[in-house]
């Protein structure tokens, strides 16, 4: 009997370790596999039992539900049926997350059996320029939020002349509502390693670093184990797979600074400095880690590279909408009935994601706002629910898709409070290098308090301050904090007016 109990942080936070222990304690002839998450977080801990090659789901599991796993499974109170047939799974196009939740994350044999390393094998037969061209043709853009074409970035590094080049993976996933990086690192770490190796071969880089946030203890453990296993198997090392160039990598742990998700600040942190933003130019592609040409890519960008090489650039490019090609792992969070990760081609209207896929709010109250793209993303009201999910489409509505996290709020939420929080967060996390962010965020909190106290004259001041921060900040922290603030003010004026009326 084979039973799968996720090791994913969300499952563990809901008791998966206790359930795994309880299953083992039953003493039956059972193999427990600690897999990644399927992404249906409302069903976690989601236990799967393999029956005649079909995996049946049970969840959300409690320790008290464990003994019945050894009885008549069809009568189990938490029985969900075959996992692949659940609407959440059947509706997705899982390319980047194809293996996540299915395989044992630390079994290289499992990884190979599910098409792992097929992309790398193909890349090893190509020269650097052809690899870069394949990535460019796929239309892949930076999944960390900026949406810069990955192939163009790789090309800049490939053409740079230097004695040492680096691949740096940005795994400082600090945005609220985002957990795709965490899920793939915990559930399919070899995909990220494979993507980094391909990036190394393409650009001539022989050393890679994953800058992983300290708030992700499970991901840190799994990634460290995966790197060691890949090194022992010769996937990493002096000659990749025994036939390619050298490439090795290390996991580095962040120290709780949100701004280190910004690429230049991340590089400073990786060098052992304060995580202060660097002015660009020079681009990190030319002068990055330790002043050497460096590819800095998000986890999902790199983890998507293997499937592009396995299936071909055209296959990947054929999914999507406009200039947003391929698939995007939506992370549905906050006050939602069905929260989790849902990978699908770009282009789905926001309303369909929130009302149909997520099933509305957990509280059962009407949806008031959805913040798309993390703490620096805009709050979208229902009036904008027809916006298709794409980089340009959201930019056209004064928003951004960022790392594709969506936080849903019900009608009890006070948007003035959320706008104030955005400024407060910016003030706490500002690296301090540029004035609009360092001082602006503090003044922003004060101005918001004036508005809350009923001072209507402070509203134009806030708008002006947001313009200054947007235009004058060095990076996206100060530059994008106006998005949540101004969208709250624009789309939910009543929350700002009520404060005024209360004062009068």
């Amino acid at each position, binding site marked *: 009997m084979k039973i799968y109990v996720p090791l994913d*942080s*969300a499952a*563990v*936070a*809901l008791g998966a370790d206790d359930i795994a222990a309880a299953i083992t304690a039953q003493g039956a002839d059972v193999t427990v596999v600690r897999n990644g998450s399927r992404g249906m*977080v*409302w069903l*976690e801990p989601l236990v799967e039992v393999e029956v005649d090659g079909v995996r049946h789901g049970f969840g959300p599991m409690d320790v008290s539900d464990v003994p019945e796993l050894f009885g008549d499974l069809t009568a189990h109170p938490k029985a969900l049926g075959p996992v692949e047939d659940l609407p959440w799974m059947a509706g997705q196009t899982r390319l980047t997350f194809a293996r996540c939740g299915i395989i044992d994350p630390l079994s290289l044999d499992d990884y190979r059996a599910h098409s792992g390393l097929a992309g790398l094998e193909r890349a090893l037969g190509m020269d650097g320029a052809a690899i870069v061209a394949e990535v460019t043709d796929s239309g892949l853009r930076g999944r960390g939020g900026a949406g810069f074409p990955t192939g163009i970035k790789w090309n800049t590094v490939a053409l740079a002349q230097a004695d040492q080049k680096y691949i740096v993976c940005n795994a400082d*996933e*600090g*945005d*609220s*509502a*985002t*957990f795709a990086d*965490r899920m793939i690192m915990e559930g399919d770490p070899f995909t990220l390693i494979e993507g980094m190796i391909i990036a190394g071969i393409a650009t001539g880089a022989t050393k890679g670093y994953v800058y992983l946030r*300290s*708030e*992700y*203890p*499970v991901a840190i453990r799994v990634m460290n184990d995966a790197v060691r296993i890949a090194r022992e198997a010769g996937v990493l090392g002096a000659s990749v797979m025994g036939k390619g160039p050298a490439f090795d990598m290390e996991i*580095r*742990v*962040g*120290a*709780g*600074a*949100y701004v280190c998700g910004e690429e230049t600040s991340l590089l400073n942190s*990786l*060098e*052992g*400095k*304060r*995580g*202060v933003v660097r002015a660009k130019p020079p681009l990190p592609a030319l002068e990055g*880690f*330790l002043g050497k040409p460096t590819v800095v890519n998000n986890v999902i960008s790199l983890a998507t590279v293997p499937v592009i090489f396995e299936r071909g650039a055209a296959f990947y490019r054929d999914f999507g909408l406009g200039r947003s090609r391929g698939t995007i792992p939506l*992370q*549905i*969070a*906050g*006050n*939602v009935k069905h*929260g*989790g*990760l849902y990978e699908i081609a770009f282009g789905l209207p926001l309303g369909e994601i929130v009302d149909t896929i997520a099933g509305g709010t*957990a509280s059962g109250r009407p949806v008031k706002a959805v*913040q798309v793209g993390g*703490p620096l993303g805009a709050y979208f009201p229902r009036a904008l629910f027809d916006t298709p999910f794409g980089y340009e489409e959201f930019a056209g509505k004064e928003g951004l898709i960022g790392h594709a*996290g969506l*936080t*849903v*709020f*019900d009608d009890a*939420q006070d948007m003035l409070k*959320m706008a104030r*929080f955005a400024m407060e*967060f910016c003030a706490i*996390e500002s*690296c301090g290098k540029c004035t609009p962010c360092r001082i602006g965020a503090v003044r922003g909190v004060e101005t918001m308090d004036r508005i809350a106290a009923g001072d209507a004259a402070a509203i134009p001041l806030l708008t002006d301050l947001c313009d200054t921060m947007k235009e004058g900040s060095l990076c996206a922290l100060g530059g994008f904090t106006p998005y949540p603030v101004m969208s709250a003010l624009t789309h939910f004026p009543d929350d700002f007016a009520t404060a005024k009326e209360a004062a009068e």
Partner: protein
Amino acid sequence: MTATALFGDAEQEVLAEILTAHRGMEGALLPILHAVQHAFGHVPADALPIIAKDQDITRAEAHGVMTFYHDFRDHPAGRRVLKICRAEACQAMGADALADHARAALGVDWHETTPDGAITLEPVFCLGLCACGPAAMVDGKLVGRADVAKLDKIIAGEAA
């Protein structure tokens, strides 16, 4: 560097081992600070000049790096550390009310330790548990769908 009451020969020896283990590493300062904090529970003030000398940076630089990051402490935390997520997705599920409850029950504000040294309360901005909030972490153990009942158990010293 002479030994002090709080940072004696034994402590200096531990630090020397940490520094040796990180020799030759590119950008070693953060891994060193993590290792020092793991060994001592905080980054002792007396350790910084030694680390600075080893890394060939000024004491001011070492201090600047150490104080830039939220993770590093200049004094020991309580016997247990309770972190509650304050980010948006958890706020949408009532994290603010939960945090208010924790502060009232413990009688401390953010970053403070209860007078008996039992618990330190820290804010955290996202544990990646955004679809099962509110989220918390107790001594590295993750807690999802946190509520008053789970929090009270944690505060009382029981497993969540």
